[in-house]
């Protein structure tokens, strides 16, 4: 299943990127090679021979809308700060770095930009007042975009994983003490009546049950950081009972089901931050939907595990 979803994500992103880029090119969305009409205002007493002259760039909203065929609601601002630069290739017009530009200029700015991230283009028409500016041609934005996103998130993924090192070490260390002190076994006795039916494959006194209890408790209380090490440790215990190295057992799927259905007795900190005290009204709907999700998760884990295909792949069959 994961094979198909994963390949599907990659293939469909490629097809969509290509499709979007082709339609952009066909519609000439970025008007490659054609001058965008601009009006330049110079400061008083400027030196026309200078290599660099500050200017104010005005773009008529109506001309902009017809030029790029955009919605009038994405109109450009009244004026933009910028400067003219004399280069060997001619006069360059640069928008000051950090200006917020309307689409599609913002996208063009990502491609046609100077070293300092300023949107830049070649000035055409009679200087110094000029009539238009031509940007570098923009092609295959989405295709570049998905490649950039992939590289970016590969880095993010490694950062997330390595960012867990400290918390993982802390809680795995505490768990080792708990194991040696017999806390886990005491917990197993406590939760056995509730959890045993969900994990019939486990021997009655198996330490995994205690770890699962810790994992679920931390999850319910919104302590995601503490819950993860407990869950991982529980998975390791389950893996010890697994006859296969790389195939999930029914117990593992059940533990995952309990974790993916997030019953949160305490609303997520993130929501609290976004919605403030309004969250109070939502606490019970959140708990209620979470419990429904949990019931569905347990039922589905049990039911799907009985399907012939999944039963055949069960390593503990």
């Amino acid at each position, binding site marked *: *299943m994961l094979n198909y979803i*994963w390949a599907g*994500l990659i293939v469909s*992103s490629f*097809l*969509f*990127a290509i499709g979007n880029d082709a339609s952009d090119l066909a519609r000439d969305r970025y008007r490659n090679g054609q001058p965008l009409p601009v009006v330049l205002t110079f400061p008083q007493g400027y030196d026309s021979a200078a290599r660099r002259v500050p200017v104010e760039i005005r773009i008529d909203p109506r001309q902009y809308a017809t030029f790029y065929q955009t919605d009038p609601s994405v109109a450009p601002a009244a004026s933009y700060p910028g400067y003219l630069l004399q280069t060997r290739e001619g006069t360059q017009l640069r928008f000051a770095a950090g200006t917020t530009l309307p689409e599609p200029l913002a996208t063009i700015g990502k491609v046609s930009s100077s070293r300092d991230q300023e949107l830049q283009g070649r000035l055409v028409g009679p200087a110094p007042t000029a009539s238009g500016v031509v940007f570098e041609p923009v092609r295959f934005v*989405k295709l570049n975009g998905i490649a*950039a996103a*992939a590289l970016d*998130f*590969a880095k993010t*993924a490694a950062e997330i994983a390595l960012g*867990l090192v400290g918390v*993982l*070490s*802390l*809680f795995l*260390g505490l768990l080792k*003490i*708990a194991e*040696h*002190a017999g*806390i886990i076994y005491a917990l197993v006795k406590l939760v056995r009546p509730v959890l045993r039916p969900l994990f019939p494959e486990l021997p009655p006194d198996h330490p995994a049950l205690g770890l699962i209890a810790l994992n679920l408790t931390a999850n319910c*209380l919104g302590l995601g950081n*503490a819950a*993860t*090490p407990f869950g*991982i440790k529980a*998975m390791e215990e389950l893996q010890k009972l697994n006859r296969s190295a*790389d*195939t*999930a057992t029914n117990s*593992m*799927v059940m533990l*995952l*089901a309990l974790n*993916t*259905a*997030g019953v949160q*007795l305490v609303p997520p900190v*993130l*929501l609290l931050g976004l919605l*403030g005290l*309004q*969250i109070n009204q*939502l606490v019970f*709907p*959140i708990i209620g*939907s*979470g419990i*429904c*999700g949990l019931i*569905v*998760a347990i039922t*589905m884990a049990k039911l*799907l595990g009985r399907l012939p295909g*999944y039963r055949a*792949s*069960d390593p503990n069959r």
Partner: protein
Amino acid sequence: MNSIRAAIGLLSIFVVPLILVGFPLYGLYKRVPVYESFVEGAKEGFQVAVRIIPYLVAILFAIAMFRASGAMDFLARALAPVLGLIGFPPEVLPMAIIRPLTGSGSAGIVVDMIKQYGEDSILVKMAAVMFGSTETTFYVIAVYFGAINIRKTRHAVPVGLIADGAAMIIAVWTVRLLFG
């Protein structure tokens, strides 16, 4: 009701300190060499983190590409009429699609919806309850199965997604019932 909530809130504040202090203290009482045990266990932290990297990279880069290509928006638009049949407003659909894939992405959707529809709107409430009652299924799968090198996940993905779907539909219905 309020006292139950207050009790839960208090409990969640005390759980981590209780584990941090309680485990070593109980260990001492049981004459466990607590420092040595701690270090022995903590050693695994780095290996576990490194072990999940390939799984996390695989999942996250594919999802990032999917989002950057515009395919995710398309999927949301294509599914809207179908889900409208079960009372699912099209505005909260992006939430339903992105929630199992990325936690930060779905939080971004809540932020975006607050800007668009206002904090008090029923749509924001629906999205918030959906966010609160489900988990980032693919991330959880990558981390938990990655840590023990499980590659054949069997029915884990369908179970997680069906549970997410059920919780989300219930979330929409409940919010409509309470605030609609």
